């Protein structure tokens, strides 16, 4: 999982990534349109997309909502300083909570940054995010030395990833 082979992706897959990274065409037959652009059959577009989904190169095909616009105006990045020996077991439990959308272990940056567990929590207001963070704190118990919740106050940029062809 750490170091997946890239060999499975060929030049056509990469062209397909470049052609769709800004989005899927919003026409009745989007895969036909991509096929015409790439000079391959529509069936091949479908096969390649399915293969990339199966291998995890594509996580999913779908819409990405702007959290704010759909009512989740409080967007908290909760960060936790968790005992290294217990962080993996606890991280898995926190990731399983229904209100956590992303959960990762990341390196500390001492002395400025003592936190090694990151969990994104969204809610309609800060009180709800705080209540959810309290549930995480309860779950972590004495394995956690300190935590903070960093609220976003502004989206400075959001374009999604861009790779060049």
């Amino acid at each position, binding site marked *: 999982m750490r170091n997946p082979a890239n060999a499975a992706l060929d030049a056509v897959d990469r062209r397909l990534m470049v052609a769709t990274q800004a989005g899927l065409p919003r026409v009745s037959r989007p895969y036909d349109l991509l096929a015409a652009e790439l000079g391959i059959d529509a069936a091949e577009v479908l096969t390649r997309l399915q293969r990339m989904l199966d291998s995890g190169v594509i996580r999913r095909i779908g819409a990405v909502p702007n959290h704010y*616009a759909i009512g989740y105006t409080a967007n908290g990045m909760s960060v936790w300083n968790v005992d290294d020996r217990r962080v993996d077991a606890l991280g898995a439990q926190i990731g399983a909570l229904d209100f956590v959308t992303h959960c990762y272990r*990341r390196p500390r940056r001492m002395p400025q940054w003592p936190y090694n567990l990151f969990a994104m929590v969204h809610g309609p207001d800060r009180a709800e995010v705080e209540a959810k963070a309290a549930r995480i704190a309860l779950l972590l118990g004495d394995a956690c030395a300190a935590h903070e919740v*960093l609220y976003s106050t502004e989206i400075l940029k959001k374009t999604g*990833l861009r790779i060049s062809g």
Partner: protein
Amino acid sequence: MHDAAALDDVDRRLINAMQGDFPLVAEPYRAVAETLGLSETELLTRLDSLLARRVLTRFGPMFQIERAGGAFVLAAMVVADEDLARVSDQVNAFPEVAHNYRREHEFNMWFVLATATREGIPDAIARIEQATGLPVFAFPKEREYFVGMKLRA
């Protein structure tokens, strides 16, 4: 900032239905529209409108760039309030910066770098540090416990 109240019930059902598993069939919009009781044209019109209004930031495949040889790294900076506009412009000018959020903390600028190769990350960081004159703290993920983007509208 958008007003959540500007979404009607059909918009919300559409957003909830379209966050994943978009079908790989010849006429996928028609297939989704049928499950929602809409016409294909109405679904496409609403999808266009949601994207134009930035209720949706994107519609299409979400790539896990690490599986394709690339890298995706969270990074943060400590930026003085009076420098925020300048630094934000400088950081956002890098195509490697996929998104950038201002957060209430001493570490007040948090962005994600996405590069086509692993080597691209330290290179982009060096160039951002040079452009802004400020240190960039990288927080690469060491372990992923969960990623699920579904939020009910």
